[in-house]
């Protein structure tokens, strides 16, 4: 143990001598690389002497105070002093070596160096003369005081060099609590660029420690640049040194900030890039930039606009808020812990002016009030005027006429006011021009909307007046009327029921197959009867609108009930082969889908439907309702025949038609073929529908057999 102490003591002595020597010849020092490494270990070791010295001071002071109890363990104090002395001198030496590296402000460095050396010498002297010092109380106290003083000064100066000035007190100093910069006031350099330098660069590029001879503390010093020249050159392709250093890959030695230090975010790089590109001014404000500018967009995520608020008032009592809340009045804080209240009214029928007055106990806290569609009147504005902290007031579609608006001038904080759908005139609004913070005034669907808007806008300098949409000049097309009759097959005459959702339209109709005309066609009045086979076409008209498309519906009159119906020969194809002929007499129309089960198809052979009547009826017409889908090989029938007689074997031909065949492809449609003849009154009636034997040559299935599809047969 004693041996180690001797060695340490001797080493301390040696190093102190060396320290003196190096200090004398400091200006001539030249350091090999490995020595630099030793120097850089200074931050590692320096904490030892600090802690040990503090321990020593405590030990010495307390043991000397307790005179009555003789120092039981003098060796502990000795060992502490010796270790202090040794680590102090080694730290001092290393510090001296480190100080030779570039980039430190000489002024602070010098102070730190000398105080550090003093610590080393003092601790060595303390150990050497420890017996004498312990004997004379006053010397002991002086030594301890000096040691405390020196270690604090040295430590603080050293920390300032490493972490930057005022590192310690920054969190409690005033600049930290400076009010947030508003978007409207922000200067690009001072509020966007400089803060990035301060956060990410300044620790190495400050007045005290100017790595690469670059100081980034003020704009003037930035302009000066560093060892390698100016920081930016907006004419250069990559905008100069600063940007190229930022853009180097992270593992490149010249990349800034160096590996291990906090890196710039993508947005921060973008801010600096666009700032340099736009000329690197130190005075331009964000608000001066054009609205599409990238810097401006970047800025909008950094700065609060006026909209975010720090509320100066106290929150209202929670129970008070709860008591004000009911099914038709929603009172709620903006967020957990926010003093600001938002109030919304619902249910116009429930509203009474008292409900507004009930809010007066929280009048300071109400920041947003929504009375949309509530029958509040101008008289209520006097109550609303007492909510002095209102930021947003929605009075849309209230019964306000405008005479009471002057009261709202007390709302000095008001930013958004909506008066849409009220009766206010432009004259009523001028009183609001005095509102200092009003940014948005909405007057859609009011008399004011169309009155001297430009004159009004002149009075409201900082307010955007929203007028919203007007349909006067817009001409658009009406939707087609809706034919509400669901049954296409009418047994008895029925009223045609048409409907249109747009108010004030005129619906005109035709039954002759032409499109309804805006002047000549009859106007639908609700009294038109469908009493025979007809195609009704309808169209809607209205002043200021483009008239609608034509909507149409074909109706079939089924005058007689067929008692029984059967096929003479079933359809040769599945699934029609097994279908009963009854579907032709069930008054159920099919749609365009021939697979719906309401259609029966024949191909190759004619469909022969034999009908039987218990009591013979006078029949003058037969209608065959069929489907045509040329692309699907379904053609109009080649021929339709009607036969009648009193016995199935003794029928005579009553009527025969040959429907027109198409000459080219066309979309699918349904058509009823009507065969009229002189009155027939027989027990049996047979309808024969023949499909085309061969599809025409222009058809993709030419020479193939055509189909016919029939869903109903109507007799009249």
């Amino acid at each position: 143990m004693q041996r180690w102490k001797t060695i340490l003591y001797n080493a301390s002595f040696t190093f102190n001598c060396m320290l003196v020597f190096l200090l004398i010849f400091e200006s001539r020092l030249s350091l090999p690389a490995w020595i630099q490494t030793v120097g850089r270990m200074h931050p590692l070791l320096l904490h030892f002497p600090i802690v040990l010295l503090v321990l020593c001071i405590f030990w010495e002071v307390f043991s000397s105070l307790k005179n009555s109890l003789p120092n039981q363990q003098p060796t502990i104090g000795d060992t502490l002093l010796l270790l202090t002395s040794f680590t102090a001198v080694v730290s001092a030496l290393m510090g001296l070596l480190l100080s030779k590296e570039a980039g430190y402000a000489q002024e602070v460095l010098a102070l730190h160096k000398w105080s550090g050396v003093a610590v080393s010498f003092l601790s060595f002297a303390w150990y050497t003369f420890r017996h004498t010092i312990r004997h004379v109380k006053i010397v002991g106290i002086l030594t301890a005081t000096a040691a405390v003083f020196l270690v604090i000064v040295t430590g603080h100066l050293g920390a300032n060099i490493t972490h930057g000035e005022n590192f310690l007190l920054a969190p409690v100093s005033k600049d930290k609590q400076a009010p947030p910069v508003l978007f409207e006031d922000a200067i690009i350099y001072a509020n966007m660029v400089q803060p990035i330098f301060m956060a990410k660069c300044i620790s190495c590029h400050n007045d005290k420690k100017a790595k690469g001879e670059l100081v980034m503390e003020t704009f003037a010093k930035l302009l000066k640049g560093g060892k390698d020249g100016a920081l930016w050159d907006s004419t250069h392709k990559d905008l100069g040194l600063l940007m190229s250093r930022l853009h180097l890959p992270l593992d490149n030695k010249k990349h800034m900030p160096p590996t291990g230090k906090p890196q710039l975010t993508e947005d921060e790089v973008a801010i600096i890039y666009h700032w340099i590109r736009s000329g690197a001014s130190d005075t331009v404000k964000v608000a001066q930039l054009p609205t599409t500018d990238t810097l401006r967009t970047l800025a909008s995520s950094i700065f609060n606009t006026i909209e975010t608020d720090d509320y100066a008032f106290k929150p209202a009592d929670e129970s008070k808020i709860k008591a004000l809340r009911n099914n038709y009045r929603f009172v709620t804080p903006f967020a957990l812990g926010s003093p600001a209240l938002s109030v919304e009214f619902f249910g116009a029928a429930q509203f009474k002016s008292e409900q507004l007055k009930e809010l007066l106990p929280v009048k300071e806290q109400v920041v947003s009030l929504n009375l949309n569609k509530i029958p509040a009147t101008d008289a209520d504005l006097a109550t609303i005027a007492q909510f002095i902290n209102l930021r947003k007031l929605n009075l849309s579609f209230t019964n306000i006429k405008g005479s009471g608006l002057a009261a709202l001038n007390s709302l000095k904080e008001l930013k958004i006011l909506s008066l849409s759908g009220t009766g206010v005139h432009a004259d009523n609004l001028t009183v609001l021009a005095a509102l200092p913070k009003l940014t948005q005034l909405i007057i859609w669907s009011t008399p004011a909307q169309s009155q001297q808007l430009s004159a009004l806008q002149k009075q409201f300098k900082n307010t955007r007046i929203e007028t919203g949409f007007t349909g006067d000049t817009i001409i658009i097309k009406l939707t087609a009327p809706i034919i509400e009759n669901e049954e296409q097959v009418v047994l008895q005459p029925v009223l045609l029921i048409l409907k249109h959702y747009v108010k004030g339209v005129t619906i005109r109709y035709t039954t002759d197959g032409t499109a309804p005309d805006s002047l000549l066609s009859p106007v639908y009045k609700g009294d038109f009867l469908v009493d025979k086979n007809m195609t009704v076409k309808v169209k809607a008209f209205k002043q200021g609108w483009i008239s609608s498309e034509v909507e149409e519906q074909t109706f079939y009159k089924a005058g007689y009930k067929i008692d029984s119906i059967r096929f003479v020969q079933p359809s040769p194809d599945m699934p029609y082969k097994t279908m009963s002929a009854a579907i032709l007499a069930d008054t159920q129309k099919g749609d365009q889908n021939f697979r719906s089960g309401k259609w029966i198809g024949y191909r190759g052979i004619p469909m022969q439907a034999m009908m039987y009547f218990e009591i013979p009826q006078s029949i003058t017409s037969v209608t065959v309702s069929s489907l045509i889908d040329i692309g699907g090989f379904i053609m109009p029938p080649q021929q339709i025949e009607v036969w009648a007689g009193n016995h199935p074997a003794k029928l005579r031909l009553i009527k025969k038609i040959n429907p027109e065949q198409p000459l080219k492809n066309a979309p699918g449609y349904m058509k009823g073929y009507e065969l009229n003849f002189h009155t027939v009154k027989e027990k049996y009636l047979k309808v024969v529908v023949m499909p085309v034997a061969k599809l025409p040559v222009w058809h993709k299935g030419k020479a193939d057999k055509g189909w016919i599809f029939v869903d109903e047969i109507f007799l009249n």
Partner: protein
Amino acid sequence: MHKEIMEHNLNLNRRRFLSKLSLGIGSVALGSLLIPDLFGSKSDEEMLLAGLPQFAPKAKRIIYLFQNGAPSQLDLFDYKPKLIEMFGQDLPESIRMGQRLTGMTADQKKFPLAGTTFKFNQYGEAKAWISELLPHTSKVVDDLCFIKTMHTEAINHDPALTFFQTGAQVGNRPSMGSWLSYGLGSENKNLPAFCVLLSKGKGNGQGVYSKLWSNGFLDSVHQGVQFSSGDNPVLYLNNHESITKADRRKMLDKLEQLNAETFKQSGDPEINAKIQQYEMAYRMQTAVPEITDLSKEPEDIVKLYGPDCLVPGTYAANCLLARKLSENGVRFVQLYHQGWDAHDSLPSQIKGQAMDTDQASAALITDLKQRGLLDETLVIWGGEFGRTNYCQGKLTKDNYGRDHHPRCFTIWMAGGGVKPGVYGETDEFGYNIIKDPVHVNDFHATVLHLMGIDHEKLTFKHLGRRYRLTDVAGNVVKGIVT
């Protein structure tokens, strides 16, 4: 003597115990100074019960215009002249990088690039590209924030849709609207907090199912209420013909007495919840017909949304209804419009779809704005994924189809707290994202953020663990938030 010593020792022990204890407690007290909300603070779940945003919200309500079936971003928003230039050429393998395809095109030998046949122009301050299919949307561009880099994990409709709506590809999780109802409650106590409206276009449709507006494991009050078109928008809400309003009131009063009695016996809080729901349904009987009556809308509004808006069940009518519900304090209005799934004949299908949706979507923005509501309402427009840049099936000069493409697609948002502009960038083929990707989880995190909710704090404990809408992922996309 012995007794005194014992007493002394006992005193000593007591003193030591107390002094040590005071030290221990003192240190804990000191430490607690650094944890301001250690005492009297509430757990996340307790905080949720307050039904308040955790920080000042930018939006109070959401209207989500879901374009079901996946609209083609390449024919609407994401303009890629390169695809027109390389029309018919094969998609380079360097771009596709062997990424997953659906079963519908996986067997295709070639992936011919199909440039859009529609004309594009730039609109607004942001110079956003919009195709001629959306003439009305292009007029409100300055209010819209286009996210061009949405991407999702699912490649088929149902999982993708479920993922968007619930944050998970499998079913049974609460829908977005349910989460918001759970987190923020209802503003208007006379209407449900979460309403659903359906409509159908003429294009190839994909189903929507009630699982998309399910409350999952949350309380059933948070379930979405579907409003159907017609005389009876909310099923089972109207009184039976033989029951008058007074009768109903009497019945509810009696029922409440009975329920209150049972509550006294069992103390089950569900009973009180039940009473409240009956009362709300009673109030809805008046509130719903008022809202769903579109006949009193002025002509300006009809022209704004288009005349279809008066025809019940159309997208336009649903947009108008969405505005009415939202302005009446409904927290979350969810629309679904079907028909965007154009695997073939895309040019003709998308024309119809755009015609059905363009005017009303834009109208909704204008309408909210002119009522002073846009700044507190968040409107979202988008599908469940995008469509491929290559053709599915046969490519001709003016006809093509597009398959599902989850790796990039465009949605837009507007209103409450979103920054108008264009966010993110896709490559020149419109196949991969090259800048600022936004995952579905990020989208959810951002939407909740705009509503004043930290997506990591909106949780619900179920089956032994805490669930959230973003589950274990998601970051707020700061770039689109004002």
